[in-house]
């Protein structure tokens, strides 16, 4: 609670810097807006950033929901960090606006709405993303209630305390409230887990598959979910490292958490390759003109270098590094790999969405991509938008971390109650009970 209560000068310096970078992002957006939406290729990097944020920051609450369902005892210190990232849904919703605006007309375009658009894409996309963002916020708030109450009771009166008091909605921690909290958390987490693949399906079908003539890639939404799980886990590790290094949370983000998260990180890296390969081998064997053209765009020619980079950062590198237990069982090992994974994820999203948005005519018949667009490098406004969007996510996280503690105090306390160290014959062993 001490770290939560105290707001240092360094904190305000970072907030200021992030606010400036976010403002620069708005400047970049304004520059793009002045060119309008006629040239879709101007918005490729914006959409790639949208997808990147959806697949990293907004994938982090899944880590919390998943670990809760699996009843992993080591999750307790890290779940709040992942849940707090649900606040970045605000940035995702804001980026969705120009993304949808940049889409071509739905008539004649291939979509999952088939012959019944009925308000698509705008209405359904906003409903879908909005529901996910709202679910994330409700999930965060519900899980934070006991700690909001603790902060309400602990902080001296101030505007901050007043806001926290409002958010705590009179939580007292009686038996009924705890029972409802546990049930609600599982339900909300389950819904977030169920809804997330649907939103990724929207993302992939609207902004990628529908713009590439001849692309019939059923696995693409599933690939997006799996790569998001990988990137979300990676981002969790990075945030944990930063909190440990700069936030003074060494006692909470210990080697146990890094070691435990390194294993699913390795698994997701293998799955990254598996899902990509399933797609690739089908097209490579099919050799239909449409498939060959798409392979040239996304794999063999135009975006070959981003794929190679992503291949190394998201698969080969993590595999080589994390196969070794000494690397997995360290702080630096998983963090370094995670950093590479997040960078690789961004490059991969650029490959998928910038390529799609650089296609002149998504409606072409026959459905064979011709001409195959060349790779597109970012321009200055794109860089500003990317930096601004990521900075605003980090800024929101930092602001929320002074309303809701970044370590779940009630969960850690519960964990301490359910764990004891006792002598077992000739050694000491940990005894862990399950809460339910």
């Amino acid at each position, binding site marked *: 609670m001490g770290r939560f209560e105290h707001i240092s000068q360094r904190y305000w310096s970072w907030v200021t810097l992030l606010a400036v970078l976010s403002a620069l992002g708005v400047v970049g957006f304004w520059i793009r807006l002045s060119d309008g939406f006629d040239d879709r290729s101007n918005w490729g990097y914006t959409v790639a950033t949208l997808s990147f944020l959806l697949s990293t920051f907004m994938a982090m609450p899944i880590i919390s929901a998943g670990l809760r369902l699996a009843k992993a005892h080591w999750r307790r210190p890290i779940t709040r960090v992942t849940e707090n990232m649900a606040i970045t849904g605000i940035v995702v919703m804001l980026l969705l606006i120009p993304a949808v605006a940049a889409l071509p007309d739905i008539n004649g375009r291939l979509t999952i709405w088939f012959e019944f658009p009925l308000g698509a894409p705008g209405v359904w996309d906003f409903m879908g993303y909005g529901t996910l963002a709202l679910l994330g916020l409700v999930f965060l708030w519900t899980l934070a209630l006991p700690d909001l109450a603790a902060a309400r009771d602990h902080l001296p009166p101030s505007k901050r305390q007043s806001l926290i008091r409002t958010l705590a909605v009179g939580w007292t921690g009686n038996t009924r409230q705890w029972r409802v909290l546990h049930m609600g958390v599982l339900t909300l987490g389950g819904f977030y887990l169920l809804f997330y693949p649907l939103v990724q399906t929207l993302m992939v079908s609207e902004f990628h598959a529908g713009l590439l003539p001849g692309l019939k890639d059923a696995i693409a939404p*599933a690939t997006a979910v799996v790569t998001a799980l990988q990137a979300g886990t990676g981002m969790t590790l990075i945030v944990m490292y930063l909190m440990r290094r700069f936030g003074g949370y060494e006692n909470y983000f210990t080697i146990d958490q890094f070691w435990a998260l390194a294993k699913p990180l390795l698994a997701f890296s293998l799955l990254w390759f598996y899902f990509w390969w399933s797609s690739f081998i089908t097209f490579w064997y*099919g050799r239909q003109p449409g498939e060959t053209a798409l392979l040239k765009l996304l794999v063999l020619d135009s975006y070959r270098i981003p794929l190679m980079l992503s291949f190394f950062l998201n698969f080969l590198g993590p595999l080589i590094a994390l196969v070794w237990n000494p690397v997995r069982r360290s702080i630096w090992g998983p963090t370094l790999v995670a950093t590479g994974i997040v960078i690789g994820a961004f490059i991969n999203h650029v490959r998928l969405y910038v390529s799609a948005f650089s296609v002149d005519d998504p409606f072409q018949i026959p459905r064979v991509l011709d001409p195959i667009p060349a790779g597109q490098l970012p321009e200055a406004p794109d860089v500003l938008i990317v930096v601004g969007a990521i900075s605003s996510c980090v800024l929101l996280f930092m602001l929320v971390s002074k309303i809701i503690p970044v370590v779940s105090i009630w969960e850690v306390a519960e964990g301490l109650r359910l764990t004891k160290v006792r002598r077992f014959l000739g050694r000491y062993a940990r005894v862990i009970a399950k809460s339910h």
Partner: protein
Amino acid sequence: MYYRRTLTEAQINRELLGTVLSTPLWWIIIVSLLGIVIAGMFSAIGFMFNQGLGVTGLHQPVFWGFFITNFVFWVGISHAGVMISAILRLSQAEWRRPMVRAAETMTVFALMCSLLMPLIHAGRPWRIFYWVFPYDWARGIWPDVRSPLVWDPVAIITYLTSSMLFVYTALIPDLAIIRDRSTGWRRSFYGVLSLGWHGNPRQWKLQGLAGILLSALILPVFVSVHSIVSWDFGVSLVPSWHVTVFAPYFVIGAVHSGVSAVVTLMVIMRKLYKLENYIWEEHIDALARLLIVVATAWMFFFWLDLVFALWLREEQELVVWNLRLFTPPWSWLFLIFFVTSYVIPVPLWMFRRVRRSFTWMLWTSLLVNVGMFLERFIIIVPALMRKGPMVFDYSSYRPSIIEYTVVGGTIALVSFLLLMFSKFFPLIPLWEEKEGQLLIDEIQIGKIAVPALVKEH
């Protein structure tokens, strides 16, 4: 949470080695009956070899029917072993203990059964060696490694070998227990198989490491096997087969049918072998909750397959799906598959009372496997019936009595092999149960004692 009954090592030995050290009457009766069915199956196969594949329902263009459906089905069932054993071992789930060996053994026998299918499907299986094994005895021809039909036996033999080694390695301590309880030829037999196991800390440590290492190594193989089987279909250009999602769709479907098969096996084992002390409501409850997650993921992949199959509005694709969804009897089969594999079982599993009822879990798990067999059938046959664009190439398919006999016979064969295994080796790992007993503890919080587990690390 578990409230484990306290069992002594002697009691565990006695109860779990019952059918190994003696032969109950029910075992003899059931094995005999299964033997008769299997004899019928092999007779049908012999008849088919003699008369040719024309005695089946296969004909142009439907050259893959019940046998290949059954092949995919049994490869699917075989995924249960690794799912239960490897993944739960790596995640240190305590509730895996009574089911790991039965699941792994079912994997081995299901794989053997699945290998039988393409062998007999060739019509003249003695010629298969030329096609698969890499040799060139004055023929100048090598197998084409570009063909997924060559990847299949490589993958399945890898998985089969790995699973057999996995079962055997974990069986060694139990073989030592049987050795110590036996006399005469049995003592020599189990003595050889147990390799002189003592149970010192080094051996136990390596046994634990073996479990983790082998689990970690076999998991990628498990994912690859059914993916490779799916690519038999996915890399072809048959409409509705040439879909990128087939690999994970098949794998998750395999896990769904495999884990359901484990539930069936657990319930039957509990009844026949009187294993009430070892297989509890908590175990099938945990399996049912796992099945809900797996089935829902499977439904997502099914939905992706359907949506993106229709995505490009390719004519032949639409023809095949029209046949599957709207043309009887295929539409009826589709409805039955959908209802039995998801619509009935999953909502039922949401109820705790259903999850903890052995009867309900038996019937829902059987329903799932009926549905999953039909799922593979509906993927394979309608696509071939409408493979080409020319209407005069359209055809139908009706399995013959030979195919029904063979498919029914494979169920009897796997059951027979499991029963034979249980005659010589315990289906529940004794040492794992004993270890589980040792790790039980409790923590006093206020007025209650909360069950807890000792964690080594």
